[in-house]
């Protein structure tokens, strides 16, 4: 498909999905399990950025916070309040995990907006791992905290008795579909947004519509900044919701 598009004069000179190709950083061999690729590079940069913000933000603490300290405190307070409000006071023990998730996703999304960079969270392989970790954590926590009573999550005691078996089947399906929707929401939103930007950029090669195309790229970029943050927020808040279900399984 990419080779077809290259031939057309004045049309797309690149394929919109080319930006998601995983390639080795050094040389060009096959991509194995331990090959250092551009994904590895941008994930490492994400982690470095998170650590830099949190360490530099808290090292020179002052009563009147500087820029770094303000952002660090803002992020900390924002997530702490979210965990407390959505998942409940007894879920505060999971705050470090949820904070890590949020910071990683939000930084990966924003670093992916730098032109020429690579968006790690636009790959299902990355988000599925994040979502599966949440799913496994929540299931294990649910069974450890409540024992067999955790299965009460699937038995809706407020519904009429004849309906409960049917509802139980639906609840079980929706429980196991959680990691699917959780991961594909993040990756799908980012991938689609970045692909749309590239499609608009492809139209810029046609002189007649290039001002419109540049306007479109700018508008989509603005929308993507919003989407990057909202998707990280949604991923985190859903983690809190799932955690609340695990800690208090009764409906």
């Amino acid at each position, binding site marked *: 498909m990419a080779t077809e598009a290259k031939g057309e004069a004045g049309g797309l000179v690149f394929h919109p999905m080319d930006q998601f190709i995983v390639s080795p950083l050094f040389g060009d061999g096959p991509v194995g399990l331990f090959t250092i690729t551009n994904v590895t590079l941008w994930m490492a940069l994400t982690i470095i950025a998170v650590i830099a913000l949190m360490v530099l933000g808290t090292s020179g603490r002052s009563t009147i916070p500087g820029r770094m300290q303000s952002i660090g405190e803002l992020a900390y307070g924002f997530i702490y309040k*979210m965990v407390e*409000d*959505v998942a409940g006071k007894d879920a505060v023990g999971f705050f470090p995990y949820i904070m890590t998730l949020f910071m990683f996703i939000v930084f990966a999304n924003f670093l992916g907006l730098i032109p020429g960079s690579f968006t790690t969270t636009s790959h299902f392989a990355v988000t599925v791992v994040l979502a599966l970790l949440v799913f496994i954590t929540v299931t294990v926590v649910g069974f450890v905290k409540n024992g067999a009573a955790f299965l009460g999550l699937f038995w809706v005691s407020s519904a009429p008795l004849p309906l409960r078996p049917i509802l139980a089947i639906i609840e079980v399906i929706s429980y196991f*579909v959680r990691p*699917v*929707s959780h991961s*594909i*929401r993040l990756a*799908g939103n980012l991938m*689609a947004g970045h692909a749309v930007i590239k499609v608009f950029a492809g139209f810029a090669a046609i002189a007649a519509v290039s001002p419109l195309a540049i306007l479109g790229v700018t508008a989509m970029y603005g929308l993507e900044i919003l989407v990057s943050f*909202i998707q990280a*927020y*949604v991923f985190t*808040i*859903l983690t809190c*919701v799932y955690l609340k279900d695990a800690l208090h399984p009764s409906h």
Partner: protein
Amino acid sequence: MEGELAHIGAGLAAIGSGAAAIGVGNVAGNFLSGALRNPSAAAGQTATLFIGIAFAEALGIFSFLVALLLMFAV
């Protein structure tokens, strides 16, 4: 021929994205109409708004998943 049919199917699955858009619009619109009636209670409900949007969006994501499977796995 089968590959082309799969592409048509993927295009049809994209209708689901439009349906999800209607759902998300419903959630956000109703939130806004409620929030304008009682702005003091709105701030506490933004989390609920995003959870509602996420659940409405989830079913659109399934149609997107079907489209992806038809495009690349069939």
